[in-house]
């Protein structure tokens, strides 16, 4: 009686124990990663041949000294980066944002002014004065250095010397020309070779921008806030040149980057007036070695202020104010912020012309380029860099450009130039304010 009761009890205990046991669950692992120095940083950039390649060099350099830090380089199209940044910053969360991001100089102020707190002040890590002077405008705010200036956007007129010669010109003839003379040459080339002079994207007014910057002018007046369109003489001239180019039928059209590069590499166009960052894409087509030369940028005809130098694009690195910022800042400061030797590598291997002043004294900067017919292109670019008129890009460059793109079409379709610029001014003022 007693025994069977005890047995029953034991069985019950055992069964309940077994039953309840199956309900035990593994506890989810708690989150890790403390506040110590992060071991992993993420960097966003575009253009594998240029920016990404430069990053890889920096990564290798940094990894040698800091083997425990993992650097993830993520490639996105520039538009994706802008979109992701806007989305992330707007939503106020730092989740999903990288540690370092590449931002084009035109857009930099837009981000810095809107989301100042989301960027990490690098004043203690790097000195703005170590870089080309015109870079300090986009990369700093309120006296604080936020960006690590990267590539120079100094422009040049890349020309096919073989086509020039066929049309009866030499590279020397292009040393001091204005855009009207450029179009005339283009007509000749088209006549002799059937090749277009230039290739243009109707949605990108980069050419206009370089033209007006060469004259020290911008879409915005010097305060960086007020649209300066209707009364902008340089802009008006640039529009007229653009239309003249179209009417002279010397322009090829492309719609995206690959088509642009394809046009250069296939030999469809005779010249490209653009930033020096195009060099790697041009030299990528080895069969054209020796057939290219770089002339100073043409000036706006009849504009005294216009010089043979301008800027297009160019971008800088920004450290985001997220976990791991110290590591990211350290990475940036020890590579792009101070390593002039690395800039030599970047130049020789990739063709990156940096804006780090100390690097300009390196021997790679004075070497002649075989691809460009023995021209010392880097020192040429360096000389032109010094002449670039400094302008305030402000925060609305692309907002205004979007308006101008539409108005440009109207202008090409026959609308009066003053009306075009006046309408654009009105639209810009209403949009910006």
């Amino acid at each position, binding site marked *: 009686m007693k025994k069977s009761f005890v047995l029953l009890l034991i069985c019950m205990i055992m069964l309940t124990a077994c039953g309840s046991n199956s309900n035990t669950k593994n506890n989810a692992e708690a989150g890790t990663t403390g506040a110590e120095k992060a071991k992993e940083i993420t960097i966003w950039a575009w253009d594998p041949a240029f920016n990404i390649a430069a990053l890889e060099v920096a990564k290798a350099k940094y990894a040698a000294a800091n083997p425990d830090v993992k650097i993830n380089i993520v490639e996105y199209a520039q538009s994706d980066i802008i979109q992701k940044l806007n989305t992330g910053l707007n939503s106020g969360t730092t989740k999903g944002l990288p540690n370092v991001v590449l931002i084009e100089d035109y857009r930099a102020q837009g981000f810095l002014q809107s989301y100042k707190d989301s960027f990490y002040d690098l004043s203690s890590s790097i000195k703005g004065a170590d870089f080309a002077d015109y870079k300090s405008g986009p990369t700093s705010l309120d006296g604080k250095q936020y960006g690590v200036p990267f590539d120079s956007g100094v422009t040049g007129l890349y020309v096919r010397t073989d086509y020039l010669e066929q049309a009866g010109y030499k590279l020397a003839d292009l040393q001091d020309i204005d855009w009207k003379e450029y179009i005339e040459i283009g007509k000749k080339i088209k006549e002799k070779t059937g090749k277009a002079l230039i290739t243009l994207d109707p949605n990108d007014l980069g050419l206009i921008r370089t033209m007006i910057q060469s004259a020290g002018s911008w879409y915005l007046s010097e305060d960086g806030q007020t649209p300066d369109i209707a009364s902008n003489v340089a802009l008006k001239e640039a529009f007229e040149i653009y239309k003249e180019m179209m009417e002279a039928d010397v322009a090829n059209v492309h*719609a995206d980057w690959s088509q642009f590069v394809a046009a250069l590499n296939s030999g469809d166009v005779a010249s490209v007036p653009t930033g020096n960052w195009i060099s790697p894409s041009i030299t990528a087509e080895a069969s054209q070695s020796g057939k290219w030369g770089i002339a100073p940028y043409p000036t706006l005809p009849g504009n005294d202020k216009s010089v043979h130098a301008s800027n297009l694009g160019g971008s800088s690195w920004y450290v985001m104010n997220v976990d791991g910022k110290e590591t990211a800042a350290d990475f940036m400061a020890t590579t792009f912020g101070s390593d002039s030797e690395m800039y030599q590598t970047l130049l020789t291997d990739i063709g990156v012309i940096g804006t780090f002043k100390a690097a300009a004294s390196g021997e790679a900067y004075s070497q002649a380029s075989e691809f460009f017919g023995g021209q010392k292109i880097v020192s040429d670019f360096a000389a032109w860099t010094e002449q670039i008129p400094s302008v305030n890009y402000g925060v609305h460059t692309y907002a205004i450009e979007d308006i101008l793109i539409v108005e440009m079409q109207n202008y090409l379709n026959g609308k009066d130039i003053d009306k075009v610029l006046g309408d654009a001014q009105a639209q810009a003022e209403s949009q910006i304010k």
Partner: protein
Amino acid sequence: MRGFWERYKFHSLFIKIFIVMVFSIVAVAIAASWTTVRMSERLFMETFSITNSKVINQIKANFESFHYSIVTATNNTGLSGTIKSFLTEEDSNSLRVLRTYYNMTTQMKKIQSNVDAYQVGIKIMGKNGRSFSTNTNNLLMTDNELRNHKLTLNTLAEPKRLMYQFYQESSTVSSKQEAEIVASKALMERTTGDIYGTLYITIQEKNFHTFYASFVSTGNDVAILNKEGQIVSSNRAELLGQQADDLLGYAQKIESKGLDYVNVDFKGKDMIVLADYLSSYDFYIVNLIDKKTALGQMVDSKMVALICSAIVLVALVVVFLISRRLTRSLTLLTRQMSKITERNFHNYITVTGSFEFQELGHAYNYMLDELNDYVDKLVHTQKEQRNAELAALQHQINPHFLYNTLASVNFLVQQGSKEKAVQTIHALISMLQNALSNVSETITVMQELENLKSYVFINHVRYGERIRVNFFISPDCTEFYVPKLIIQPFIENAFFHAFNRKTEGYIHVLISQDAGSLICEVVDNGDGMDNGHTELPGAESKRQLFTGIGMKNVHDRIILLYGEEYGVTVVSNINEGTAIKIRLPLILVSSQN
């Protein structure tokens, strides 16, 4: 070894019970945990497959909404005259081309907005050789390559269908091996049916799998298969692009038979496979659940086993203790009972243990009580009987003795020895007084001595004094009690039998104390007996005797009264005499019975 066996014999019940218990507990534990684990597994599988089919529906919905955006974008592209003219028109002057390009890009931006929610790239390619791509990261090949690529050829083969194809970047331009899903459709002139271009909407696999990425976990994988059985998307990157005909087979089986799920062996792992068909994509969505991993998270068999063993161990200890406690009383009982030997009924059992054993012990003790009681009664009765016998014998005072004594008194009176006659009468009175009183009474040695002296006196009167009697009494023995008429029969015997041939001699009566016993010796130097006939003679000739009590009776009586260690011993040699030794306990208190 034998000791061990002996011990084992007493514990055999315990060992048997314990072994049975061990086996049952272990069996119950194993069965219970196995059943529990099995049941929870089955339950888990059921719920898992239900949840996962819901999950699959959710994933499907995600795919459908993506598909819908693609369809919208495709339709808008097909309807757009701007795009059509971009893709059909021949190169003319710069201005016109620029305008076409501009309008096209404006249009494409609008179309792009249909799919803005997704990270897709749109590419259009026309028969005039023009193309436009919104995302230069996707479809990294030249237009010519693309034109002759399987992607395009498949699309053109079925121009009315929006098809989804898998494409793995293998371009020399980039080292990336990015996998992509390409939705493509031929752009067709609706009235004539002429194909003027192709539309490609590409999404990188890593973005494609965000449609289901939030539903997967370790051991719960999703793979998207195309009709050919190629894995076009999966959260497990290593499966990407692989041919998985077996999975396709399972998916088709599930689809055609309307099964909920199938249990399969995939890549050496026991898996549950759920599948559904994405008709708009012509893809199969396959959900692979690794039983081991999924269940491993749910049921920790090792833990179950561990806890069960712990419980079994505890149970065994408890069972051991309890069954030992239960059987110990029995073992004890058995041991105690086995100690009972012949004629020893005084081994009472210590009553311990559970109720049953207590009852048993009580019953046994009661039985012993009864038995002892009975034996006591029996002994008592026998004693009574013997006493009665003795009393009868004692009271049978031999009339011859009286006659002879009285005749002797008469003779003495006649002789004029008046003094002696009075003494003889006194002795006779004393003897009769002693003999006629209660036979079971004990008397002191002193009193007995008086009696003996009276008896000897009478005999001397009757038969003369040729046999002398001497008494040697140790002074420390005079106060001890002895049964009545213990020594008298031996002196009588010596008087009448020891001196048949010899005419004179002596009889010594010695009473002393030795080793806790009272020793009474009657020693004569008479004829003696053959050593072979030393047993005590019974009372034969009654003529001269005082009472009917014989020597044999005395011995039996002593044994009856005091036990085996007491009694009468005889040592005799012919012509030397006889020594009789009576051993009695030292008794200081008179007893009535």
